[in-house]
């Protein structure tokens, strides 16, 4: 898969990766221990699951009343637990070390994929967007974005290379990482089946549907576990109501947010997402834009919160943004990258501070 890779092409991206982690951790030190300072909101759920497993019942104390860790899928907490078993550090530290180590791999395969399949001209710009921009914050702390991003890119590589058995293996882990994972695999299967129909290779349809079937096995396994633990196989979905999320027609949440003038950052982010997904389709990035579109529709059906994270925290978004910038003038590129860097540093600060201006 990684034939003809020259390590010297990756020296500058590796330097950018080290610098971005240095900036992130140096900012965190001003607040407390980086592993504690970076752990906010969902991170506590993941670390709690890694440490104690899933709850049998919902919490009864006031600020977590009716909540439980069931919507947080098990792949990332299991990896944190594994790292803790190997190196023996605190769970918060293990989560941070794991993600920051995985970040190098994410960068490596994203650049590889973008160069081979998306014809990216300047990999340094992509590395900069991926690692220095405000949405890179999700990869560097104890969230699933880094692991999920790696699996999404691997799924895209195997889809483009039509390796459906390897894609099936990735599909299983992807569906255990996030609720949207199985839908990413569905997008890959649909893409393969479409090319199959186009080339009149009808005998391969079942083979190309197989990754989605394996993806469903991941979700079913987790559902069976929830049935045994919580007494409800769909607890991961039902419990979302405790976070104020429930399914609505995709545009309804945007209209509601605008009418009530609340969560406007989520609305702005949704419109930026729509622009870049459309740009992806227009520029022949069909698989990448399809994955982002399915993720977008699923996320927006549950609310506008975290829209920036679901779409912009996906390496495929960085690839589309990089191609968008390639078409622009040098001056525009420089100004955009400088703005991304400055907001990136600010977003880190706001994250550690616990402010919600960008989230």
């Amino acid at each position, binding site marked *: 898969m990684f034939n003809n890779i020259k390590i010297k092409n990756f020296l500058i991206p590796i330097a950018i990766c080290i610098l971005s982690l240095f900036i992130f951790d140096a900012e965190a030190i001003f607040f407390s221990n980086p592993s504690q300072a970076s752990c906010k909101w969902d991170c506590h759920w993941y670390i709690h699951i890694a440490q104690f497993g899933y709850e049998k*019942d919902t919490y009864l104390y006031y600020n977590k*009343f009716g909540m439980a860790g069931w919507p947080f899928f098990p792949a990332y907490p299991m990896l944190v637990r594994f790292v803790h078993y190997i190196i023996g550090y605190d769970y918060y530290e293990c989560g941070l070390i794991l993600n920051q180590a995985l970040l190098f791999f994410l960068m490596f395969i994203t650049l590889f994929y973008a160069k081979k399949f998306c014809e990216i001209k300047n990999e340094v710009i992509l590395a900069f967007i991926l690692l220095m921009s405000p949405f890179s914050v999700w990869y560097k702390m104890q969230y699933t974005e880094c692991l999920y991003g790696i699996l999404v890119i691997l799924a895209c590589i195997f889809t483009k290379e039509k390796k459906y058995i390897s894609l099936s293996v990735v599909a299983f882990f992807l569906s255990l990482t996030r609720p949207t994972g199985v839908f990413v695999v569905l997008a890959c299967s649909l893409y393969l089946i479409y090319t199959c129909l186009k080339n009149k290779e009808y005998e391969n349809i079942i083979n190309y549907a197989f990754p989605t079937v394996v993806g469903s096995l991941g979700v079913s396994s987790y559902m069976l576990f929830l049935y045994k633990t*919580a007494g409800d196989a769909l607890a991961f979905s039902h419990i979302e109501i405790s976070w104020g999320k429930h399914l609505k027609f995709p545009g309804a949440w945007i209209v509601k947010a605008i009418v009530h003038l609340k969560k406007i950052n989520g609305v702005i982010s949704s419109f930026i997402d729509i622009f870049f997904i459309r740009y992806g389709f227009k520029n022949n990035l069909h698989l990448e834009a399809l994955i982002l579109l399915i993720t977008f529709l699923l996320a927006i059906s549950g609310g506008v919160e975290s829209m920036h994270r679901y779409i912009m925290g996906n390496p495929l978004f960085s690839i589309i943004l990089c191609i968008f910038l390639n078409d622009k003038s040098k001056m525009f590129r420089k100004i955009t990258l400088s703005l991304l860097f400055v907001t990136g540093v600010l977003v880190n600060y706001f994250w550690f501070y616990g402010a919600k201006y960008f989230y």
Partner: protein
Amino acid sequence: MINKKILFASLLIIAFDVFVLSKAMHPTKSESYINYFIKKKISRDEYWLQEMNGLGEGNGWRLKSVCKPDYYTTDC
């Protein structure tokens, strides 16, 4: 040519999915508890108050077993 092994594995997995979905149709405890928010269209705060006062659908059945409000059910 259709890969028979893939076809067989797919059928096995689909059978397992159907088995899990049949389980999902019959939750044993938590689903009704969570859906209470949706059915009654009340907020978590209101539900918490109702349950604390023994006025909710569960008639405080879970909270009765709680030693202190900030303890987990399983700890008491």
